């Protein structure tokens, strides 16, 4: 007699039940859907919007299921062609300010959703979409910070009556100050030491010169602030794009990953994400403004001669609280701007004393270009560098002191005004970004990839099951059940962790199928050996399981080590593969050892004087 504790059977049953329930949602194919929400985040979708959509679609004879969710209206359809058609029809017929996005709506039954069972997420390679990897140019953030500090210093020096002969930012990172007396130099040095803590000491550098370079910790702080702000800004912008289930994540030290499932128009997405456009407000330079304090800028629309603006910035786009695109009395595009409190008072102070003079609005945009540099081996290598374009969009006479709200005109087109409004609303990027990687997968390729993945998994499983059934008979049944059980568990765990399934992930599952059999092969070979050594069947089974266990353990732990290293070092396809591989190894240990043991015991365990087993 061979006993196997009741609790072990119970455990296996519970795990099996749990696996089946939580992997179940994956059997329900999602509906292609269109998701509509109001642009303004304060307004949530309502019955009115749902009815409007229903009427538009009824006019066009399109069949769709319209559901009102908390934040949006979901329009479910049955084919991908209809999905695109509905999106086009809605975007040209809906009058309100709405964001329309493609989505894949799950069809999981309510009772499953209620217990938290949801399908696995599909990676971009399986559902289509765009993946961007952006590198944050933190050097620009550092330069901007030093520019700001220099401007601040000029004002403070004037207040403190410290006379200097030269003040500029050199090498994009340190401030160079030149004085014409030792006394002034010392006074400035003391003043800076008392009021600024971010610089490397000593400040003194040669005769009557102070160099203010940022300390290591300060640079790190600026860099991480820049990346955090860029992340926030990107999330805001992605929300404005109306993508369902977007991913915006930091990757490594200076990079940000953005994944937008369902998006096909990469040009628009890139335009919005990568734009560093923002505004700067400057006073027009006067005749007596020294040359070193003013710069000439061209007009953005190309009309009119370039004009000189003062270098000091009244305020920048980061102090814009809200911005809305609209039209002025003459039907020309404009942007209505509301500043935050601090911005409002800065604007008021600057314009109060300058009535009659002109206020310039600068459109500032960071762009990137590729230049070729000769590397050490004399080969031309492409290097991306960013540069700044500053153009005047309006230069208007100040008639009265401005407050927190005003409007900007002089924009070329309604699309430009709405884009500028969006960028001002979503916030500026603290540092420009370059796209270092971009992957777009069309929906048809995604569907083909799923089909190929599923098909190869079915065939692989079929072949392996066929072989072990033929080779191991009754024990083969145990191993086959365990293998199937393993896939169910693997899928259930992936679903619970809401891990993303990718094509390499499917390959990982398929590979797990092939390798998970190994544990059973080890056990069964051992049992055969023990039988050959003359043990009676029950003893042989017992010895087989016990002796093979440590081997299985060692073999799996080492493979798991590889999988975990892949998981931590890999990106993209490598990661997807590593996830399924690691989960598969863990679940296979359970199913191949405990699962088959329970089955074998159920069949043979109660028999006394067992003479033959079918292995």
């Amino acid at each position, binding site marked *: 007699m061979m006993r196997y504790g009741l609790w072990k059977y119970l455990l296996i049953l519970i795990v099996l039940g749990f696996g089946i329930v939580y992997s179940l949602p994956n059997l329900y194919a999602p509906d292609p859907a269109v998701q509509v929400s109001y642009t303004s985040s304060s307004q949530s979708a309502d019955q009115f919007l749902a009815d409007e959509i229903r009427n538009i679609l009824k006019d066009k004879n399109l069949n769709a299921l319209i559901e009102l969710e908390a934040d949006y209206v979901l329009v479910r359809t049955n084919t991908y062609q209809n999905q695109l058609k509905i999106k086009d029809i809605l975007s040209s017929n809906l009058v309100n300010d709405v964001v329309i996005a493609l989505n894949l709506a799950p069809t999981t039954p309510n009772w499953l959703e209620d217990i938290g069972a949801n399908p696995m997420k599909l990676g971009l390679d399986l559902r289509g979409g765009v993946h961007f990897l952006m*590198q944050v140019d933190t050097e620009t953030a550092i330069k901007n910070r030093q520019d700001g500090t220099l401007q601040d210093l000029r004002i403070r020096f004037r207040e403190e009556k410290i006379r200097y002969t030269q003040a500029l930012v050199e090498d994009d990172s340190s401030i160079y100050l030149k004085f014409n007396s030792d006394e002034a130099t010392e006074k400035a040095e003391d003043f800076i030491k008392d009021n600024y803590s971010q610089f490397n000491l000593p400040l003194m550098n040669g005769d009557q010169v102070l160099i203010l370079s940022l300390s290591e910790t300060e640079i790190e702080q600026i860099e991480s602030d820049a990346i955090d702000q860029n992340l926030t800004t990107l999330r805001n912008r992605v929300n404005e794009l109306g993508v369902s289930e977007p991913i915006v994540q930091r990757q490594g030290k200076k990079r940000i990953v953005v994944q937008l499932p369902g998006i096909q128009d990469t040009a628009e997405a890139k335009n919005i994400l990568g734009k560093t456009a923002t505004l700067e407000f400057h006073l027009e330079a006067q005749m007596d403004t020294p040359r070193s304090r003013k710069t000439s800028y061209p007009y953005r629309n190309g009309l009119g001669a370039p004009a000189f603006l003062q270098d000091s910035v009244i305020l920048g786009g980061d102090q814009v609280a809200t911005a809305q695109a609209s039209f002025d009395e003459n039907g020309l595009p404009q942007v209505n701007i509301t500043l935050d409190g601090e911005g409002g008072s800065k604007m008021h102070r600057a314009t109060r004393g300058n009535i009659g003079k002109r206020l310039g609005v600068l459109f500032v945009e960071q762009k990137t270009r590729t230049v070729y540099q000769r590397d050490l081996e004399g080969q031309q290598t492409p290097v991306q560098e960013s540069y700044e374009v500053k153009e005047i969009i309006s230069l208007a006479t100040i008639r009265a002191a401005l407050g927190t709200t005003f409007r900007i005109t002089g924009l070329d087109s309604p699309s430009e005004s709405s884009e500028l409004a969006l960028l001002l609303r979503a916030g500026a990027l603290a540092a420009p970004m*370059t796209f270092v*990687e971009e992957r777009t997968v069309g929906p048809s390729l995604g569907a083909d990839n799923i089909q190929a993945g599923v098909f190869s998994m079915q065939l692989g499983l079929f072949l392996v099951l066929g072989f072990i059934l033929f080779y191991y008979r009754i024990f083969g049944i145990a191993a086959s059940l365990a293998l199937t059980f393993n896939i169910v568990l693997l899928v259930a765990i992936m679903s619970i962790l809401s891990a993303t399934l990718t094509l390499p992930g499917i390959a990982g599952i398929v590979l797990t199928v092939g390798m998970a059999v190994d544990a059973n092969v080890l056990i069964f070979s051992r049992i055969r050996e023990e039988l050959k050594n003359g043990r009676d069947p029950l003893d042989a089974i017992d010895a087989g*399981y016990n002796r093979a266990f440590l081997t299985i353990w060692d073999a799996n732990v080492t493979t798991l080590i590889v999988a975990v290293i892949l998981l931590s070092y*890999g990106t993209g396809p490598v990661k997807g593969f590593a996830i399924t591989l690691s989960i598969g190894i863990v679940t296979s240990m359970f199913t191949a050892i405990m699962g088959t043991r329970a089955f074998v015991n159920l069949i043979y365990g109660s028999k006394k004087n067992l003479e033959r087993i079918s292995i």
Partner: protein
Amino acid sequence: MTFNIDFLAWRKIALIFSSLFLVVSIASLFLKELNYGLDFTGGTLVELSYPEAANISEIRATLIQGSFEGAQVANFGSSKEILIKLPGTVSDSLGSEIVSLLSSANLNQEIDLRRIEYVGPQIGSELRDDGGTAMLIALAFMMLYIAFRFQSMFAGAAVIALIHDVIIVVGIFSLIQIEFDLTVLAALLAVIGYSLNDTIVVSDRIRENLRSMDSDSTEEIINTSLNQTLGRTLITSLTTLLVLFSLYFLGGELIKNFALALIFGVIVGTYSSIYIAANALVMMGLNKDHLRVEEPENSDDSLLP
């Protein structure tokens, strides 16, 4: 399955065979190098699907007219599918420009954009470095674990076998110039896992027999162990190869090279756990004394099922 093969009699031949293969692989890696895919070289890749068989030379001509000189155009999987590659390319919007150019040249045909990939110049070399680092770390951890669970000679033998496998698989990729991309790198790491799995099973049996068998001849013990585990080794390799072939033939173009790397890896890994790892143990002079100090195996009873 019972075997009684004198594996170690083939030892010298196997050694010559492996050395030859290693030399050819390394020479090929130096002379022909690897055919790195987009992930590692950087550049732009566009995959398009035409409703009917696409005319490659026409597409090439259109691209050259549109001043995309360096474009390589080739079929991908089928005659309707087209893969356009622009190596070392300069702009991240190139992909969409190509699509609009080709669509305007083919007004009567609906071109389906399957995918666009752009990888910047700095990413490629980083991915290569990361891949190399990951592989070295994996090897180091393997060595540590085996040294801890078995004994340092086993660790040495296993790592020699792993390096042997990786060099030969990469060598094959270099020899027949199959594209080496990120998924192939992942496959290579999986090969490490698989080959190690095999080596551990064999080593485990050698350790057990060193303790239990009466014979004093290490070679005889190793030979017996190899024969005892051969059945299992072959069956597991067979089931793994079954799924890999189904991935290779049905998994789609993107998975093909991944499956291929693993197919080579499984074959080489199976061979190496028999001939390289076991051989290395013999050559390092493993004998019963090396295991005497270790604690008895049943200290791990708590782990039993």
